[in-house]
């Protein structure tokens, strides 16, 4: 089966500096870094076409960093990330919009930045308008939006760009209950279309409902890769021990 996401020996180190300018010293001499934080250690896994993989772990375990690396938003310190196909990343949904543009114009703007052509966006703009249910606000500057409204816009843009690979970071809680239901239904629909999905959530139910496999990330390492129930059991036991 075709591998849609392949991660090999991935490491991510965050470098911290006491003073900003020390970065300059660091990139030239590799000195001046006050602290290194190894957030991902030697991660290897792959996601096949049509597979929905859940990512579990406590806050700070490295889930978001791993997702950003797969989405190509940040760079690995070492190792490889290979992604075959267009990625739809549901990460930082309301970021990257221009507050002075209308919702419609922002879809064109961010869509272009994502590498879409005007005609491609023309095709999806009506669907997006209908999906976000913003009414007349869709043609108002998004500085007038509430945070939930701009997140809806981001969500719609990411799912309507026909991604083959979906990366979902804790975002099925966007907007009010009605929109949550709708966004969940949309995501389920995409799951059924056989997209490959990397999905992080703190809700055991969601993981059980959708995923065929889980990765349990603990302190930057994958400690479990396999059956959903087994993974969740391990994770919940660890949490109980901490309490």
């Amino acid at each position: 089966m075709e591998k849609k996401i392949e991660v090999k020996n991935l490491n991510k180190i965050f470098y911290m500096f006491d003073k900003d300018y020390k970065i300059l010293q660091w990139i030239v001499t590799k000195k001046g870094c006050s602290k290194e934080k190894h957030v991902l250690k030697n991660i290897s896994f792959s996601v096949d076409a049509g597979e929905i993989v859940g990512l579990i772990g406590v806050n700070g375990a490295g889930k978001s960093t791993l997702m950003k690396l797969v989405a190509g938003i940040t760079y690995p310190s070492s190792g490889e990330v290979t992604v075959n196909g267009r990625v739809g990343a549901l990460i930082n949904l309301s970021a990257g919009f221009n507050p002075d543009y209308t919702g419609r114009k922002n879809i064109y703007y961010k869509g272009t930045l994502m590498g879409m052509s005007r005609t491609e966006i023309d095709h999806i703009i009506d669907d997006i308008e209908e999906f976000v249910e913003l009414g007349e606000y869709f043609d108002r500057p998004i500085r007038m939006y509430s945070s939930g409204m701009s997140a809806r816009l981001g969500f719609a843009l990411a799912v309507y760009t026909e991604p083959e690979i979906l990366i979902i970071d804790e975002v099925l809680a966007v907007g009010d209950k009605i929109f949550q239901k709708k966004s969940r239904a949309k995501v389920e629909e995409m799951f059924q279309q056989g997209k490959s999905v990397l999905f992080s959530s703190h809700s055991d139910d969601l993981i059980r409902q959708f995923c065929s496999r889980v990765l349990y990330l603990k302190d930057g390492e994958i400690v479990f890769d396999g059956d959903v129930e087994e993974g969740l059991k391990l994770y919940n036991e660890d949490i109980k021990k901490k309490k």
Partner: protein
Amino acid sequence: MLESIKYVIEEHIANYRLMIKVALMDSKKQTVRSSLGILWTYFHDILYMAVFILVRLMIAGNSEMMGMHSTVYLITGMIPWFFISDVLSQGSMSIRSNKGIIQSIRFPATLLPTISVMSIFVKRIFSFILIFIISFGFGYAKNFHPLLFIYYMMCLLALCLAMNLVFSAVITISEDFRQLYGSIIRVLIYTMPILWDFSRYTAIWPNVLLRINPMVYVVKGFRDAFVLGMTQDLLYSVYFWGCIVVIFAVGCFLQFKLKKFYADFV
């Protein structure tokens, strides 16, 4: 170093269509809230120039500077300067102010400085028409050198593109540098032959010191193109292009090394 230059150039070539599209959209970004839009940019310029021209006329009357009417002298210096100044102030923020994009989608960050120079160029292209109107109006039409104009336009763009690679990177990571930079660009105009004429200083050292800044070459060049003809010596031209190569190389190095930090750090 060579690796980083190669990387930046390749990324630019691979994404040139995207850059043009985004630059065209960005050129309208700042003025989208106002009803007069881009006209405000020109309004600022014209007001600024009018003040200096009037003051000069009040102090010295219909006088000449470097063998041309003072109004033409001021205009040919100030319009390229406005372009440089926009690149220094807005262009240098291109990575910092687009952190939302860097942190939410996969977008090659090294393109952002170039995109902002392109969008400033699109926004300002008409301001160069003002030089034509005024210098031709003062009867300097026969002095116009189209080839020199094209050459110095290229120099201006090369300088701005190279410079912006460096400044946008450093400003993104260092708040101290941003403060220092902010105060330097405010006084920079007075160190260049834009509002005053330093050809009357014949001593070598002041001349060399003032010319270290490669922007001086471009500003003088525009006067050459519109009025004076070729006056800059070969040595200074070599120095200018040497500066461009060095600035560009440093810019590529910084962008290449820092691109890994932008999303985590901005």
